[in-house]
């Protein structure tokens, strides 16, 4: 079997390694596909659905779809942009995301995606659910208000930290993150560091990076990926 395959992204031929996802292959070639739950070093959960693309006409999450030879992938279209926007809007309406008083603001991937996608208002009714802040752990806050159920921390705890300190419980709108016991989670765990939003934060670290100097303060999310490709200009 050949090590490499050739596929097309928005009409442009790229090469990718067997075993890569569409998302990884695109990024390596300087094409940014917005995403929230996928993280390079973790197994993709496919939970958020932001990274939807069309592959040979069929809709698919690019983070869980492996590359294969000859695929025609559509990343940029009004329709796909609309899907991504709507999903990000859903996440804002579903949880309690108060950016003005969140320590993650400026470093938050959800917020950064909303900036990038040009979301200035949310079409869905804000739910304002009643959720808890779990401050029991000596070093870690778990703020369920901000959790988007992406599964990064659960995945990291299970497969990177080899602890399964975190799991999801409940189903549907009652699905939420649960911790087995504070002893299982350590401040150095990967599970603690991978949260895209402000749901898992280390204590005593607030505002160590001042506003104005944060990850997405000056460049949109994805700009880093796109800088690998001189043909793409970050919007």
């Amino acid at each position, binding site marked *: 079997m050949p090590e490499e395959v050739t596929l097309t992204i928005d009409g442009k031929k790229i090469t990718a390694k067997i075993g890569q996802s569409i998302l990884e292959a695109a990024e390596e070639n300087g094409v940014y596909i917005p995403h929230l739950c996928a993280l390079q070093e973790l197994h993709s959960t*496919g939970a958020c*659905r932001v990274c939807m693309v069309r592959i040979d006409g069929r809709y698919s999450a690019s983070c869980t779809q492996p590359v294969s030879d000859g695929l025609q992938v559509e990343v940029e279209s009004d329709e796909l942009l609309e899907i991504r926007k709507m*999903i990000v809007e859903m996440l804002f309406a579903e949880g309690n995301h108060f950016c003005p008083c969140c320590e993650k603001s400026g470093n938050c991937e959800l917020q950064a995606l909303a900036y990038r996608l040009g979301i200035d208002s949310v079409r869905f*009714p804000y739910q304002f659910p009643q959720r808890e802040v779990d401050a029991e752990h000596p070093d870690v806050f778990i703020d369920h208000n901000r959790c988007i159920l992406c599964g990064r921390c659960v995945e990291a705890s299970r497969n990177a930290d080899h602890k*399964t300190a975190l*799991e999801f419980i409940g189903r*549907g*709108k009652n699905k939420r993150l649960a911790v*087995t016991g504070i002893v299982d989670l350590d401040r150095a765990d990967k599970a603690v560091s991978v949260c895209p939003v402000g749901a898992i934060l280390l204590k005593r670290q607030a505002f160590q990076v001042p506003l104005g100097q944060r990850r997405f303060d000056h460049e949109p999310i994805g700009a880093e990926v796109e800088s690998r490709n001189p043909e793409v200009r970050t919007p």
Partner: protein
Amino acid sequence: MSDPIVTICEHYHRDRSRLMDIVREVQARQGQVSPEAEAVIARELGCKPVEVQSTVSFYAFLSERPVGHIPIRLCNDVVDRMAGAAEVARAFERELGIPMGSVTGDGLFGLHWTPCIGMSDQAPAALIGDLPVTRLRPEDVPELVEILRLSKDPHAIPREVGDGNNAHPLVRSMVHNNIRRSGPVCLSPWPRGEAVHRAAAMDPREILETIGTSGLRGRGGAAFPTGMKWRFAAQAPGARKTVICNADEGEPGTFKDRVLLTEQAGMVVEGMIIAARAIGADEGILYLRGEYEYLRAFLESVLQEYRADGLLGSSIAGLGGFDFDIRIQMGAGAYVCGEETALISSCEGRRGDPRNKPPFPAQKGYLDRPTIVNNVETFCCATRIVLGGAEWFRSLGTESSPGTKLLSVSGDCERPGVYEFEFGTPLSSVLRAVQADDAQALLVGGPSGQFVQEAGFGRTIAFDDLGTAGAVVVFDHSRDLLEIVEQYMEFFCEESCGYCTPCRFGNEVILQIVHRLRTGWGKPEDLDLLRELGQVMRKASRCGLGQTSANPVLSTMDQFPHIYESQIARPRGFDLAAATSQAEALAGHPSRHLEKEGDHA
């Protein structure tokens, strides 16, 4: 004395993948799976308590809190509501002195709602303990409760047993089959065991060829070509392979698998054995929905008979090396487990979360083994195809949809029940057969299917026209379709696993918007929003549940646009009275802006 929970874990060899069976037994024994019990189970299985909790909290029939020694689960499916489920609920509330969703002070009774339990043709129905009680009337409730109070045993409910195997000593249920029309494939007698002998004599490739040529497609709704699915699994490398029968019939309004399992269980088992021969599987699982627990002992006895006859177990039909056995895996109340990868997760003792595809089950399924999952009816078809031949099967139905289809018909008709029709039958013929002469709308395929209005009654049951897993619900002209849509959306909200964003939140939003439209507080822009949201859910959801759960709205917007447009003809703006209800109660007076608002409303 050893801890009974430890004994249960020992019985399952402390196998983490049998967690579903373990927690089900604990639930049955203790009426709950308490956090303490979860800790013991975790210790015994060598996993974290949170993993046990993760599974327990996923399934409706498992609970960390007590649900009552005798849980009474009233079915709140649309058809049951049409048949008076609300009045029955009120009667139970009165008799037990507790509201729905609670447990009596003595812990004896729990009163709960549950989605469709597969008894739509004999609604309103309930599960009392594990026993289905059908055609409930409010006036019967006092006596029922009295008997339960005295006996503390649902089996003490005096009842006439139903027809056929419902009267079998291992079933003894009041359920009726209501078989209204038998066809040549599924609902007619078959020579027991013969298909297994033939399969044993055939080369596996020959079986694959026969099933492929027959044009059989999955009967569970997705309509995937069965022969292709089996071929993928046959070709996939793996020392062990698995055949799973999906008897998690959960689509509201569907009950034909219940009838097949009651009357034609052997045909289902033989279909699984044939599949095992075809793909080289050694293990079979019959995944039976929790609601059909009352059929479990009977089905175990059917399997036992096949073992006794040398048709299940080792050297099946005398063929050395043809080893295959079947176990029953009980579900525990989760519609999403009808999705094949969610069902596999459940079989492994996990939450019923669907999985990412690829890898497909045929490559990597149950315990990472190549696995096929087929519907109950599909296995019946396979048995009949081995007996009758692919050509004969193809002579039934249409070119694109060979064979017959079982329909579960309920709602506003004279003759609800199970009908076996050849594919290609128009809805109008179905309506004549079920004696429904005032149909406003037909829901074909259940809420994940589509609503069809009168002008579409000439359409046919076929994969290239109206594909369906078999539910047909009839709504006459007295029914408020928007209310029905709202109730089906409640169902999807309840049953979404919550894994992916569009399904977890999209269903909630649709429910809220439909509710405000129905109550007269819709906004003109709501209709576009519903359409766009429905499309996003269809395209972006991770599994079939979310990809189809907007269908009640999308198909009624298409077929009955007036029920939406009439609701926004005169927009009323913001519902200030509702928005100030709490403050009004505290202050003792309504908003002084209310009257003025009312004036130009």
